[in-house]
């Protein structure tokens, strides 16, 4: 291992390793660097309409109607954050929250800080498409050498489920999704991934990019102390590094409403099967 000189308080990584070397703040004159095995975790979160939102559009179906809509942390991102905080509590380390969004996403970011993230970064831009968002995340990750980059398996607005994979590809790191269990042992992650009709157990070396879902952790609710401390935690706002998009939404449409329900009396339940065969023609 190469020992580099560095200033007190400065953090760096040794070449070929993802381990952190930190100089102790409390003893600024001490030149002996300490090996710090703690994790550095980045959690990428989306700010999305609450799951109970009735979706509507304005401007001739070209704009999402934000009026009266409550925005929340993406439910899958919330699972990722909850697990990140559990890992931090168990193994030590830091959790940074990253959101690509305009200023109106800050309540969601503050809530993540209240739940226990240490600091946050907001890339000041409308998250126009998955590739654009992934490029912002990758640019920040390149500067910071995170051990784990966690996010939800997909955002619940566009349900693309691609950002983790693109980030992994841009960083040359493995990506795994949807992850339903995550444990860290030294520099190795033990992962359970959901597959059709079951699950698989995987093992991979850090650093990794993971798309998360339940039951990786239970959603966390901020407590009063968390809410108070969140106000003063650092939230850095930066401008996007690139503007490339590969897709562009032209307009929106709402699904046609379902026809009226046909009720069948319980004592004639058997007729349902006839109707499914002769009328609906699905069996």
């Amino acid at each position, binding site marked *: 291992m190469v020992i580099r000189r560095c200033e007190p308080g400065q953090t760096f990584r040794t070449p070929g390793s993802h381990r952190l070397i930190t100089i102790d703040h409390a003893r600024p004159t001490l030149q002996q660097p300490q090996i710090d095995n703690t994790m550095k975790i980045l959690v990428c979160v989306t700010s999305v309409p609450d*799951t109970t939102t009735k*979706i509507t*559009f304005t401007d001739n179906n070209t704009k999402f109607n934000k009026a009266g809509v409550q925005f929340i942390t993406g439910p899958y991102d919330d699972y990722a954050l909850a697990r990140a905080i559990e890992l931090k509590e168990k193994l030590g380390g830091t959790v940074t929250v990253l959101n690509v969004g305009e200023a109106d996403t800050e309540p969601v970011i503050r809530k993540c800080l209240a739940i226990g993230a240490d600091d946050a970064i907001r890339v000041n831009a409308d998250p126009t*498409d*998955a590739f654009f968002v992934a490029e912002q995340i990758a640019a920040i990750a390149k500067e910071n050498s995170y051990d784990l980059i966690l996010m939800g398996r997909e955002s*619940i607005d*566009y*349900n*693309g489920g*691609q950002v*983790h*994979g*693109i*980030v*992994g*590809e841009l960083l*040359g790191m*493995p*990506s*795994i*999704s*949807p992850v339903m269990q995550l444990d860290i042992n030294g520099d190795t992650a033990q992962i359970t991934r*959901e*597959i*059709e*009709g*079951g699950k*698989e*157990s*995987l*093992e*991979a*070396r850090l650093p990794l990019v993971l798309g998360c*879902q*339940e*039951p990786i952790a239970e959603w966390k609710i901020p407590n009063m102390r968390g809410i108070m401390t969140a106000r003063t935690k650092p939230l850095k706002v930066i401008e996007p590094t690139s503007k490339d998009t*590969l*897709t*562009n939404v*032209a*307009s929106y*449409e*709402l*699904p046609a409403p*379902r*026809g009226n*329900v*046909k*009720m*069948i009396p*319980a004592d004639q*339940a*058997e007729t*349902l*099967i*006839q109707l*499914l065969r002769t009328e*609906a023609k*699905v*069996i």
Partner: protein
Amino acid sequence: MSVLIFAELDEGKLRKSSQEAIYYGAKVAEQLGTSATAIVIGQADDSELATAGRFGATKVLHAADSKLNEPNGMAYATVVAAAAQQEGTKVIVLAKSSLADAMAARLVGKLRAGLAANVVELPDLSNGFRVKRSIYTGKAFAYTDLTADVKILAIKKNTLAVEEKDATASVETFSPALNDGDFGIAVKSTDKATGDVLLPEADLVVSAGRGLKGPENWGIVEDLAKALHAATACSKPVSDLDWRPHSEHVGQTGLKISPNLYIACGISGAIQHLAGVNSSKVIVVINKDPEAPFFKSADYGIVGDVFDVLPRLTKAVQAL
């Protein structure tokens, strides 16, 4: 220039969802005046691969390197990217799945391709390349222009009614250079229900919620599913309580499915549950509470006790 379809295998057979993807890809190829090629990775007989022709592919590229036997999104993306390059492909089609989603995302990074997920119709090529995709977990659609040179379409189940024809595809071995860096993830074990109908691919689904009271009562759900050759699904609390495996959980935070028939038993119909199932063609709701919100989103409803109604439905199906 051919349209390339990423087709998946399940125990050596083309998956049903991949057959749909091939059919869709062949239709896009027709629109573009070109042919459809399927790329298949893993072990399978040539005779099985040739059946891709029934769904409209003229050629199958078969990558059978034994290193690729374990599904691996990263390595598969390397193979598909190589196939796309060989074929001069501008449009790649796949059916959404846990493997295809992982593969497609890596492909976006590799090719700087524009990906539209949950596509529900054929593209509109009258002015650029526009697709209709489902967004907000089934609550809306977005007409999206794909502006990148290479386009990837991940289609939702039941996008087109598949019509088979009497044709076979030619099968070519495809052996691109593999990338060691793609094999860093070790698969320790796989735990998968076998022999059952896979939920994401199922045409018919019988689903049950907290109204079933406990895991010991699932026999009546499984009996109806078996009689119909349907897959079983469940609501979120049911998988949270460990009454059923998580892979059966449908809804906002679970699987999004679009079968021909979805039978909901003892499920209240919360908006988060509906989000995962509302694109099913026909929805049947069985609930003892006439006020259950699910009835508003159903095509057929029975106000009744599942413990009485389900066994009778099973008998009626068996009598068909």
